[in-house]
């Protein structure tokens, strides 16, 4: 089981995930690739074999008003291939997860079209790196604009309109409110798209919707037998939130609020993860993207925690 984390590295200073300069400073994919090369060095040193790359590695690559940025991927074919070779040597599984502004099922055709372009660009990067089919671009269904069934259908239509290269790399993740694992599985049945289970999102839908072990097995089996599925795991934040509100007389007051269970914690609760591993026993092997605010630090800590508290599970699942 590979454990991964997303984008930002906290365990070593000065490691950027991509070229963050504004357009007037001529940022470039090749600079992002140099930063990624540095991160890959760090990942090898930490024995981490799964990583989500920033969706902004190719700055402004699909911006309609900035054609000067549109050819970056082609310009970096040699460098992308070289970085891909490094990833293969390190047995590093990479992926993308476009931002919430990528909405393939948007009612607005312009937004949907732009979303398709961004997905295609990320798929092209993975292709240029020579990555296998397990290197994926993760997306959500999108919004419920009219009704759920129509919104799902619109996703299916837009998905089928994508170029083959984009469809080959795209996978679908459930969310916590609009489109549950049942909805994404409905889309899988229609399109064959592989599913990524997000455990926290699934829990927030309630076990009446589908118990987590059942959802896990369902999602894993949407992947071909020769590919290792991936899922997302996170723990919910439990901290008290203090918000400033105005009372009836207009005075500002600090008001205590409960946590939102959909928000990610800083570190992964090891006991929740251990329980999850116990439920996963007997299922086909899969990889886990950890979604925690402490990023690589959370991964390293969890690895140590599983080895410490349940060395039998650490060995069974080949964790660290």
């Amino acid at each position, binding site marked *: 089981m590979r454990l991964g984390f997303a984008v930002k590295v906290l365990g070593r*200073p000065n490691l*950027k995930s991509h*070229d963050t300069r504004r357009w007037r*400073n001529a940022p470039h994919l090749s*600079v992002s690739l*140099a*930063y990624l090369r*540095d991160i890959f060095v*760090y990942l090898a040193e930490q024995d981490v074999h799964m990583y989500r790359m920033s969706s902004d590695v190719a700055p402004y690559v699909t911006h309609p008003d900035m054609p000067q940025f549109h050819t970056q991927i082609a310009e970096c074919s040699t460098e992308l291939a070289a970085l891909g070779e490094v990833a293969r040597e390190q047995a590093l599984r990479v992926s993308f997860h476009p931002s919430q502004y990528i909405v393939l099922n948007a009612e607005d055709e312009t937004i949907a079209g732009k979303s398709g372009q961004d997905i295609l660009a990320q798929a092209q990067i993975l292709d240029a790196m020579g990555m296998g089919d397990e290197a994926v671009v993760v997306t959500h269904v999108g919004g419920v604009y009219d009704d759920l069934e129509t919104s799902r259908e619109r996703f299916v239509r837009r998905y089928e309109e994508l170029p083959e290269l984009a469809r080959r790399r795209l996978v679908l993740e459930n969310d916590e409110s609009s489109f549950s694992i049942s909805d994404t599985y409905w889309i899988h049945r229609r399109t064959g798209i592989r599913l990524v289970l997000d455990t926290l999102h699934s829990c927030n839908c309630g076990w009446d919707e589908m118990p987590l072990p059942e959802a896990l097995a369902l999602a894993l089996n949407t992947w071909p037998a020769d590919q290792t599925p991936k899922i997302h795991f996170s723990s919910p934040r439990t901290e008290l939130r203090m918000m400033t509100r105005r009372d009836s007389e207009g005075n500002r007051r600090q008001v205590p609020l409960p946590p939102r269970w959909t928000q990610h914690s800083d570190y992964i609760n090891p006991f929740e993860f251990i329980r999850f591993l116990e439920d996963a026993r007997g299922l086909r092997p899969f990889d886990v993207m950890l979604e925690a605010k402490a990023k690589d630090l959370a991964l390293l800590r969890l690895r140590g925690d599983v080895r410490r508290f349940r060395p039998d599970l650490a060995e069974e699942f080949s964790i660290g």
Partner: protein
Amino acid sequence: MPLVDYRETENIRALVVLVNNARDWDIARTQGWYRIPVSRAPRQIGADVLAFYFSRALPELAWAVHYAAPVLGYYLAPRRELLPEEPDHPRADDLYHRVEIGPVEPLPHPIPSLRLRRITFIPTTLDRLLAAEEINDLWVREPPEDKLWRVLKGAGLHPEERLEIQEGGVEYSVPIAILCARGGVGVGLVERAAVPDGWAYVHAPSNDAEAWARTLARVLAEVERRGGPRP
């Protein structure tokens, strides 16, 4: 765009690189690129800005960082492509990172190495580059390292960061080095580090203020044993 006009300078990464021959400096200024051999590239090469540290090969600029340029791209190319006038060079087929840069501009003030030391690469930030008084101010340290550095500098020991020493055919990289009248003292957060003959190494556990105080006492004792810190 002048370097000082970069927005969000605290997020702008810089890489200090060595210029040890006039040709490479001429190429940087006139052709807008600098080469780093892939086989000898440092752990971190990614940067938005390249800054140039000069060796004795350019006497009027030697032993200081004087110039910087925005990075425009990183491309891979064999040496024979970069330097076509040397097709038969033994390393003609070696791969290099060709770092394309924008206009080279002088820093607000040179950043000297007070000990005229050998430098290869220093990953840093633009705001440090613009504020540094001497070369050791450029290193970006993780919090325990930074604390250790401040403790040693505050004690008047003139520490040198990541000093590379060649002695008896062996290369040493001392995490923090305090040069003494006789030999030196290496200090670091790792339990053991190789240091040259005649040197001492002091491991600095990074847990609490009391531990730092004990570390400093040990370092001072070792420095005293070696004739005091070299100014």
